[in-house]
Each structure stands twice: as C-alpha cells, then as structure tokens.
C-alpha cells in the first residue's frame, strides 16, 4: 500500500505531460486534415464568382464580382445545366423514395413474419449485397437499350432501386431494436390490415432510420455516373454528372473557367447544404450497419 502511494504521484505527472503533447499534435493534425478536405470547396466557390481572365491569371482567396455573369453563361450554354439539375433531381428523388419504402417493406417481411425460408432469404440478400453493379452492367445495358429500347429513359435508373440490399440491411438493423412485436400484435387485435400496419404504424416508427437512408440513397443516385452515362445520351436527358464530365472535353465556348466553376459548384452544393443540417445523423448512420454484421 505504501509502495503504491509513493510511486503514484510521479507516474501521474509524467503521464499527463505526455498526454498534453499528444493532444497538441492531435489538434494540429486534425485542423490540417480538415483544411485539406475543405480548401477545395472554398477555392471552388471563390472561383465561381470570378471571371475567366481573373481565374487564369492568378489564384485568389477572396470572392470576385462575376457570379452573375458566370450564371448567365451557364444558362446560355449548349450544355443545359438547368435541365441537368431537374433530371438529376427527378431520378434521385424517385429512386431514393422507392429504395427506402420498399427496403422497409422487405425488412418488415423478414422481421415480422415467420414463413418458410425466411432465414435463407435474409442470407441471400446479404450475399448479393457485395456484387458490384458493374458486373451485371453488360446484361443490364443489353436489356434496357437493346431489348426494351429504353435508351434516354429515366425508368431503368429509378425502378431497380426497389431492390437495395444495403438499405434493407440498415433498416432491418434499426427495426430489430426499435420495433417491438407487441405493438404489431396490438394493431392486429384492433383488426388492422397488414399493409396498413406497415404504412400507419411501422413507417412512422422507422422515420429516423428512413431519413438517414433516404439521404444516402439520394446522394448515391445524385452522384451516379456509370450507368446513367451509358443509358442517357441525348442532350436534354443528361444528368449533372454526365454534364460535368462533358466539361472535361469541353469545346472552346464552354472552356470558360468561370462557367465551369459555377457548374461544378451547383452539382456539389445541394449535397453540402443537406449535409450541414443532417451531418450528425449521417455520420451516425455510417457506422451503424457497416461493422455489426
């Protein structure tokens, strides 16, 4: 006992000093990495307010006065960015709502009913979760473009999101801990139809999980390039990522840097705005399903 008392104080002093050094280093590293993540967006938005001549002559960290000019150039461009925003929004909204609603339905089927093959279905959905979409893209392209003749149609980019294994998995995890079966039983005694139970009782209870998954589904559709680039080719059907890509091979008229920076700002801004409001639940949602399988 006395031995311990003797050594303790000395040990503590040494320990806390080491901790203080680590803390200083940690803050320096964190601030540096945060800047490394944010500086690009800052430069992007600053350059969106500067003219082509200003941008190409020198770098600046203060805003210019040409945001409106650049916006007008964007409106007058042969690349219809306004249309692109609308197209992207239509696809992203419809596919994310479908994905979230039907994933909830699938998760409810597995969670609330005891039918034959239930376990096998669950394992099967988990197994197909890892298959990259690119692996089936040849057959998908053939089906959509050659068989169904649906080139330049939004539906093949919207409907497949009904089968979203990852969204299903997240929602199922949430259901397991937040949807007591007793509640469903009570509703049944009241004579509720099963579909009504899903829409009137389960859906409101799942709202927090659905909201996070809605954002994830929206963002992944909004950002998607691979499949849309194969299916949407005519001018007024293109989505934002496709239009941004065409800037890379821009003709002289669209080489205006102010215009390019405005276009890029527009495609990242909606996501950043949503993120500012929901960052906490989004970051929380990242780790929920990933590790606990």
């Amino acid at each position, binding site marked *: 006992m006395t031995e311990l008392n003797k050594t303790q104080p000395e040990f503590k002093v040494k320990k806390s000093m080491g901790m203080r050094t680590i*803390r200083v280093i940690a803050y320096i*590293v964190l601030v540096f990495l*945060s800047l490394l993540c944010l500086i690009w967006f800052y430069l992007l938005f600053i350059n969106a307010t500067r003219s082509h001549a200003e941008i190409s002559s020198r770098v600046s960290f203060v805003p210019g006065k040409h945001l409106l000019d650049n916006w007008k150039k964007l409106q007058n461009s042969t690349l219809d960015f306004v249309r692109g925003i609308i197209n992207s929004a239509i696809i992203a909204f419809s596919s994310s709502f479908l994905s979230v609603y039907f994933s909830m339905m699938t998760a409810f089927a597995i969670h609330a009913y*005891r039918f034959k093959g239930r376990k096998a279905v669950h394992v099967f959905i988990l197994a197909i979760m890892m298959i*990259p979409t690119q692996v089936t893209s040849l*057959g998908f392209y*053939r089906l959509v473009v050659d068989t169904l003749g649906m080139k330049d149609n939004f539906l093949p980019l919207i409907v497949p999101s009904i089968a979203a294994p990852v969204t299903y998995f997240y929602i199922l995890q949430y259901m397991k801990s937040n949807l007591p079966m007793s509640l469903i039983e009570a509703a049944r005694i009241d004579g509720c139809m099963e579909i009504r139970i899903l829409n009137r009782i389960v859906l409101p209870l799942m709202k927090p999980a659905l909201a996070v998954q809605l954002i994830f589904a929206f963002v992944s559709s909004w950002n998607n390039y691979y499949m849309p680039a*194969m299916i949407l080719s005519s001018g007024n059907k293109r989505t934002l990522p496709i239009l*941004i890509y065409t800037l890379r091979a821009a003709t002289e008229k669209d080489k205006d840097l102010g215009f390019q920076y405005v276009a890029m700002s527009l495609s990242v801004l909606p996501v950043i705005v949503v993120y500012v409001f929901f960052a906490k639940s989004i970051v929380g949602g990242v780790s929920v399903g990933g590790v606990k399988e």
Partner: protein
Amino acid sequence: MNETVKKHSKLGRDKWGYIFLIPFFVVFLVFSFYPLIQTIYFSFFDHYFSQTDFDYVNEYVGLKNYKELFSAGTARLFFNTMILWVMGFVPQILVSLLLASWFANNRLRIRAAGFFKAVIYLPNLIMAIAFGMMFFTMFSRSGPVHQIFEYFGMSKDYDLFFHIAPTRSLIAFINFIMWFGNTTILLMAGIMGINESLFEAAEVDGASQFQVFRKITLPILKPILVYVLITSLIGGIQMYDVPEVVTKGSGMPMNKDIFSTNVPAAETVIMRLAQYISKSKNYGAAGALSVMLLFITGILSFVVYKFMAKDEE
C-alpha cells in the same frame, strides 16, 4: 376448435411475409439476375457487325474471350487499378487508425470531435465526377494549385497530366481524401467497442500510449481492419469515376515500359469494361471481364463473411 382458427389465421398472416418480398425479388430478377445471366451468356460469344447480314450477329466462340483475358494487356489493367488503390489505401488506413484512436481515447478528450468527424466525412458524399473534375481544373495549367506551384518556381508549361507518377498520385490522393473519413468512422466504432477497463489496466501497469495501441487496440481491431481492407479492395477494383474524368476517359499518359502493352498508365478495369460495353460494343470481351470481376469480388466477399462469422462466435 378455437385453436385451429387461431392457427389458420396465423398461417394466413405469415403469407404477407411472402407478399412483401415480391417487389424486391421481381425487381432483383429482372434488373440484376437476368442481366447477370445475360452477361455470362455473352462471354461465350463474339458480337460483331456482319457485312453480309448487314447487322450485328453473335457467334459462339467457346472460351476464346476468357483465353484472351489472360494477356499482358488485362494484367496491365489490373496492375494499374491495384497501384491506384494501394497508393490511396496505405495513407488512408494509417491516417484513419491514428485519428480513430485519438477520437476514441477518453483521456485525450478531443473537443469538437463531432465537427472534425463531419468535416473529414464530407468528401465521401461529394459527386466523384465533380470532385475529380474539380481537382483536374485546380491542378491543370490554368488552375489555382498550378499557380501556387509556379510561385515556388515550377515551369508554367509543366503539365502534370502528361506524366505517369503525378497523374497516378493525384488520383490516389483524391481517393484518399474521399475515403479516409469513412474509414476513420468505421474504425472508431470498433475501438469504442473495446472494454474501457482494458485501457485502465494498461495504464495502471504503466504502458505507454504506443504500447497500448500496439498490444490492445490493434489486436482487438483486427476483424474490423480486415473488413475495412477487403471492402476497400472490392471498392478499389470498381474504381472508375475519378480516373475516368481526370484522364478524360483515356487513362493517359501511356506506359513506357517493357510490357509495351499499349495500355495507358491510369486506365482501370472498369474503364475498359465501360468502353467495351457502350463504345466498342465488344460484348464478348465485356462479358468475360465481368465474369472475372464477379469471381474476384465473390471470393473477397466470402473472406469478409467468414471473418465476420468467426468473430461472432
């Protein structure tokens, strides 16, 4: 009597389980399973424009497309993809481990941890095409980063997109920025799960921070590290958007080496696949390449599954 009624209604209710599964499985069968079968089917055919029929025809060629996969050119594509992945993943896992151990350290008490986590996760949500395009514009000859480099004495005519190492490094750097926040959060969830008393015991025994990390944190994190490694590898094999936009779909600059395979240095497997499908309509080669990718990702997924299952026991 009452019993049978009850049983009957329960059976009737459980059929709703099947009904609720219908949308998922119909869509899966039409838009994933059927395309998968088609993809495998096409891998045994050559798809070409016949001058006599004046239309595209499919000719059965057996394993020809698979044999052609085992060439230096395909090896090059996989090598490119892996180089780009490794260059991004190594700094990513190191930085993420460091940050995760700091965030999860109760005695370090990082303030505004939520803010920092939110900031480093942000790039993961940004459109990869726009993020890549943004970096291209910034590092191109009229871009702000180039202008800063000029200030430090770089030639105005230097174009880093004409050189292999800088192009690859930039792509890897973009991937690093986009993914280290995500990895940090995953690892953190793992570290948080470690019993706090282990750390306390180590502290009482006088273990240094580094010793605690090496002897306690790292071994317990092993399953999650394997999970992060393999899921990142699966993602890495699918690398497409960033190199596609940075190199304008060309994968340029060209390799100048002994392989002389005419495969550019930043062309990835999926870039080639997309080109086969929508540009050159080389469906046979695309099919064989897809099947190969399915095998690789299948094996990797199985490893993850086994590892997680073992962890659960």
